[in-house]
């Protein structure tokens, strides 16, 4: 049942990508905590950068898992990653400053049990399954948390469920106008779930190259970040949201042009054929 269909050597080893992705994601999420220290919302964009680095790690994990013929399609891997990750992330937000660490541990436990269930109870018997589902649950949890930090400026339960609005000069607490109460988490969920599964789905095959797939992941991540930055105008100050938006657009433009270059490099033959010229007199 479990035959590894693609054997591609070379490139950065998976463990290196995993450690780099984990560390940079956690550091970026914690950098959004500068918001609380400096009493601004300027550092929210670090949440978006956390999303990009988590997605790069996650898409390589999907590559490791889906190289075995699991027979269900690559998108299903992204869906289970975010399904299990979001559950862990929502509980973790209750732990204040410890939230990212709790999300990491909790998602790893959920992912590990789901991996055991699919490998042993459902008889998948894929060597990479347990580790891959563990990693993907963590990626899902940290990605949604990164989106939360970017859109609302914080990652605590109170910050995600309330916002203070001013009504006739009096501050009132609004629950509907928040990341969770406003349902923005559903958009963040799918932005991440699509961005994590698309790169391997698009790049798989005999011509798979690691750097090209990871560049596409970064491009998808920044594209999601643009949407999240637009949504963040609703919850954080316009200046801070503008910083996120500009960083996202610059990152997307750079990674998109790089991906285009890599695609041209890997194409069998690249011929820039012009449209058929209109000749006179026909």
């Amino acid at each position, binding site marked *: *049942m479990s035959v590894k269909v693609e054997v591609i050597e070379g490139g950065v080893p998976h463990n290196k990508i995993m450690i780099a992705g984990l560390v940079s994601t956690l550091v970026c999420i914690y950098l959004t905590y500068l918001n609380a220290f400096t009493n601004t919302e300027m550092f929210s964009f670090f949440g978006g950068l956390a999303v990009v680095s988590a997605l790069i790690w996650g898409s390589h994990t999907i590559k490791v898992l889906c190289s075995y013929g*699991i*027979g*269900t*399609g690559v*998108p*299903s*891997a992204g*869906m*289970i990653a*975010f*399904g*299990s990750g*979001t*559950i*862990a992330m*929502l*509980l973790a937000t*209750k732990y204040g400053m410890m939230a990212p660490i709790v999300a990491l541990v*909790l998602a790893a436990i*959920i992912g590990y*049990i*789901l991996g*055991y*269930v*699919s490998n*042993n*109870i*459902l*008889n*998948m018997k894929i060597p990479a399954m347990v580790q891959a589902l563990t990693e993907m649950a963590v990626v899902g949890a940290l990605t949604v948390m990164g989106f939360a930090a970017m859109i609302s400026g914080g990652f605590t339960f109170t910050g995600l*469920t*309330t916002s203070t609005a001013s009504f006739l000069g009096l501050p009132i*607490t609004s*629950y*509907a106008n*928040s990341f*969770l*109460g*406003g*349902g923005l*988490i*559903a958009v963040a*969920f799918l932005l991440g779930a699509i961005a994590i599964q698309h790169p391997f789905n698009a790049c798989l095959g005999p011509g798979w190259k690691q750097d090209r797939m990871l560049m596409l992941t970064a491009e998808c991540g920044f594209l999601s970040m643009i949407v999240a930055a637009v949504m963040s105008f609703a919850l954080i100050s316009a200046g801070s949201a503008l910083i996120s938006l500009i960083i996202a657009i610059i990152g997307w433009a750079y990674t998109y042009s790089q991906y285009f270059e890599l695609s041209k490099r890997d194409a069998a033959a690249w011929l820039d054929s012009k449209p058929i010229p209109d000749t006179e007199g026909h």
Partner: protein
Amino acid sequence: MNPTAMAVGVVLLIIILGACWYVSPTLGLTALIGIIIGGVLIGFGTHFVPVGGAPAAMGQAPGIATGVAMLAAGAGLAGLFGGAWAAEQGMVVAVVTGGIGGGLMMAITCMMVNFVYVYGMGIPAASGKVLHDPITGDSQAEYKSQGTEGHGLPFVSFVGGVIGGILGGAGGTLIYLELLGLYEATFPKMMGATAAQVMPVAVAIAGMFAVALFLVNAVLTAYNITGTIEGPHDPKFKRWPRAIVASAVASALCGFVAILIVAM
């Protein structure tokens, strides 16, 4: 089937139920049992849905031409949204509405798929797994092209799809209702606000958990089916017992985490 792993799964299920009884003996445990029933309904229902995958898109296997997770999510979420509209009219009405929503979604999908197969691709519906359709008794072998596993969407697959949609939609709605009831009862005290104020948060978190649980169950069932299934008459359908255990464990685990939000 792996008996040791099944036993481990059942023990895990009992441990989680015990832990839930410990942190929240009445409200939490009732909700968790509802969530497990909902998850099992989703896992079982997904086996009925005729999934064809890429071969079906080329007319070489019967079923709807996409993956298990996508189809289950489509049917189940349509049901969940339908059921959520009826949430205020009581448990029975809402769950039935959710089931009808999911079934309707699958019925429309199956019908349009057959239109595309018959009038677009020019292929008749024929099952490759059975000689006669178990419901209508129509002979299948004469219509099956050589070198394929059948094609199109035979009547039994259509019925299977609708049943799968009904079970999935009802299960998703049940999870949503259980969590919504729990959060509506506990959030006002936890967040220090009135019931009306926390309503958007309760709806959003319950909805998000329901969607997440749905996707986890649908993908686990997809792993059980490994690829394509024709419907209830397919030999792969007999694998459902292990999916029931897997769905129960996964739903219990995720549901327990959802209950911990208000219990801790």
